[in-house]
């Protein structure tokens, strides 16, 4: 069963930007695209743990600020010739509020 936790207003995350949510096991990055879609990903690039929330968001992807790896916000897959994947978490926007799935965050705490 999904229980959705209200995190913040959509407006708190800039378009083509990201903010962080702290969890017991490190930070989850909440991304907002130019089209106002919202994605939640582990805030660590599979390459050298670069903070993805600080990257440049373009289309449905983010470029890691450390070494320019490009990561799909939809799948977490690294794009291009590099290989790797970032964990993604369910996120949705309802009536201008960003919601995260509590079940997944709990699993994350247990994992």
């Amino acid at each position: 069963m999904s229980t959705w936790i209200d995190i913040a207003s959509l407006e708190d995350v800039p378009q083509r930007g990201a903010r962080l949510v702290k969890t017991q096991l490190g930070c989850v990055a909440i991304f907002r695209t130019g089209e106002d879609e919202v994605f939640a990903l582990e805030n660590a690039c599979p390459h050298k743990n670069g903070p993805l929330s600080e990257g440049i968001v373009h289309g449905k992807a983010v470029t890691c600020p450390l070494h320019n790896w490009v990561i799909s916000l939809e799948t977490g897959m690294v794009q291009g010739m590099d290989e790797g994947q970032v964990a993604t978490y369910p996120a949705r926007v309802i009536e201008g509020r960003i919601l995260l799935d509590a079940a997944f965050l709990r699993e994350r705490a247990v994992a």
Partner: protein
Amino acid sequence: MTQKLIVIGAGMATGRVLEHLTDASADIEVTLINAEPRGNYNRIMLSPVLSGDKTYTEIVTHDDAWYAQRNVTCRFGQKITTIDRAAKTVTTDTGDTLDYDKLLFGTGSNPFIIPLPGHDLEGVIAYRDLEDTNRMMDMTSCNKVVVIGGGLLGLEAAAGMAARGVDVSVVHIMGHLMERQLDEAAGYLLRKALVEKGITVHCQANSKEILGKDGHVKALLLDDGTELPCDLLVMAVGIRPNVKLAQEAGIAVGKGIHVDDQMLTSDADVLAVGECVEHNGAIFGLVAPLYDQAKVAAATLMNEPATFVQKELSTKLKVTGCDLFSAGDFADGEGREDIVFRDPARGVYRRLVLENNVVIGAVMYGDTADSNWFFGMIREKTDISDMRETLIFGPAYQGGSTADPLSAVAALPRDAEICGCNGICKGQIEDAITAGATDLGAVRAVTKASGSCGTCTGLVEQVLAVTLGDDFVIPAAASICGCTDMTHEDVRCMIKSQELKTMPAVWQECGWKTSCGCHVCRPALNFYLLADWPIEYRDDPQSRFINERKHANIQKDGTFSVVPRMWGGITTPDELRAIADAADKYMVPTVKVTGGQRIDLLGVKGEDLPAIWSDLNKAGMVSGHAYSKGLRTVKTCVGTDHCRFGTQDSTGLGIKLEKTLWGSWTPHKLKLAVSGCPRNCAEATCKDIGIICVDSGYQISIGGAAGMDLRETELLIQVPTEDEAMEVIKAVTQLYRENAKYLDRIYKWMAKVGLDWITQQVEDPGNRTALATRFEVSQSVYRKDPWAEHVTEKAKTYQPLADLTLEAAE
């Protein structure tokens, strides 16, 4: 019918054979047997592993998944005991007997161990595999190590351990290091560089005996009586092809396993590749011919025609700070001539050996930038009679079209590294091109080649040109990125002429192919828009790299560095106290004095940035923009205030300049310096803009660089008064802002437009004033402290959006 292939040994050569076979989906069932309990890794990268530049996992070329995906049956940690060539079977030490149609030897080589007394003591090792590397990595600054052998491998081992602080001595029997690749002069320079790294070098030293204690190595005794104490002794004196198994199976062997041009042994169903083979009397230790052999062996196995040809080889040493290159034959001999060039101050040595107007050998030390060009000449046997006079200075000094500009790149082997930042070789780029990446942007996206510092962009384009032939024209200027076909110059013209004042307007009018650009084009567009429309356009932080978005420099662990401005390098006790207090309060791990005459606080947490800025603001300090493509610092000397040689108030002018220019955005970073006299203590002549004060006024020069490129500034103009100097500098900065390509420093821009044109623009009094005025208009928006602004308006955005640490624990 599917052929059964058994491969003996998982090394770099057989690994490459398997890649060729599986890439071609050959109808062959492969079993790979390896005595080492692991698959194929990049053995030549063991030195970077040793020095700590890479980890073992980074050099694994084939992991379990790779073998599984390609249906290679692996038997690792197993040895073959017998081969029955009549029955076409092999038997392993696990007692299994396996059938084969074809057998491939890749048994490699064994390190040669000199049979000195004591060579079997514990702690005497070779430098061959991961186990050896791990033994060396266990050494610390408390240990002493002796390396016997001053060749390529021995020196890489020595340098790798020295980099870890180990006390290393190299013992070499010959008169100079790397005598097979280097002549005496280059050997001398190399020795000097290694000694500077703390390595002790003994040449012409004969080892007599290895001394031990309780079965463990204790010291090496030389025949002159010298005793070199050590905890580990590494022998790196050469390799011997491993032919034992082949010999027992009755296959013809000499120094190595005899192979023909198709890599077939004396048995037509048995092939061999790599360091275990002997071809036309030669054996092989470098990787390039091994890869050539692998290609031929794979073709032979697939019944395709292919011939292995021995080529000229070149050597580079993988030791940081020792740039060294050698190729061909450089022994003295009748009918051979030398051309030598030395620059003692830079530690540069170049020697070419000529025979019948052809370069047959080259040795370079200290500056190897042109090595590929010379290597190309050796391989192509280019007639150099027309360029003999200037040959030694390299390709940049050759007039006319003496050589095909692409021949050097065409001659490079597949494993020649093109992109040093990302470790991308020519072969990988060729593969990407063959797979459909037919322009620079696509190659960059697929391989990352030229995607970091970009200095190899020209080389990558040449690889494209060589691979695609007439289908690829090296573009005069490449498009900004994959989002558009337009060049930087095109887009700048459009922004000005069409009065495009927002980013969506540019995307629309210039036909962007993506919804909202990418990390390459957006920062460029953001700069162009604010440079051309300072009043109308609003800076877009989301199109800026993190450093400029957060006004701090991101570090590798995600923390930031904070550099407050010190105008002209002048500070006060109060400022220093405030910096010290901030460093204490925010537990700053590293406080460093920068080259720009100020103080860097490194390791500040992102969340703490607004608070530390606020504290520094209260003490009267502002952002130093140490992170921006904009004005960084104005470095000064003390000038007439204190210096007995000073001709003008250089410090005062530096402060004035910094207070005028700070906050301005430029195509790339902008560094200035003002020296009070031609002694130039502020090092003004390697800055983007440098001012040298003289009795009669101010010499303003531009286009210096002291980074990846090293360049001296060139004189733009000399003016008699400080006011004129200020106006000229504002004008030239504005000219640069309005015209240069994003990420071109002044020297790169100057190379495109020419110093004469720039001088004309700022000499004309009307034009100079107009430029300076436009600069002031822009500064009316940007000459302010971004830290103060973020503290009051954006502090919240530096904090997490939510804290779920308690929530999730429920």
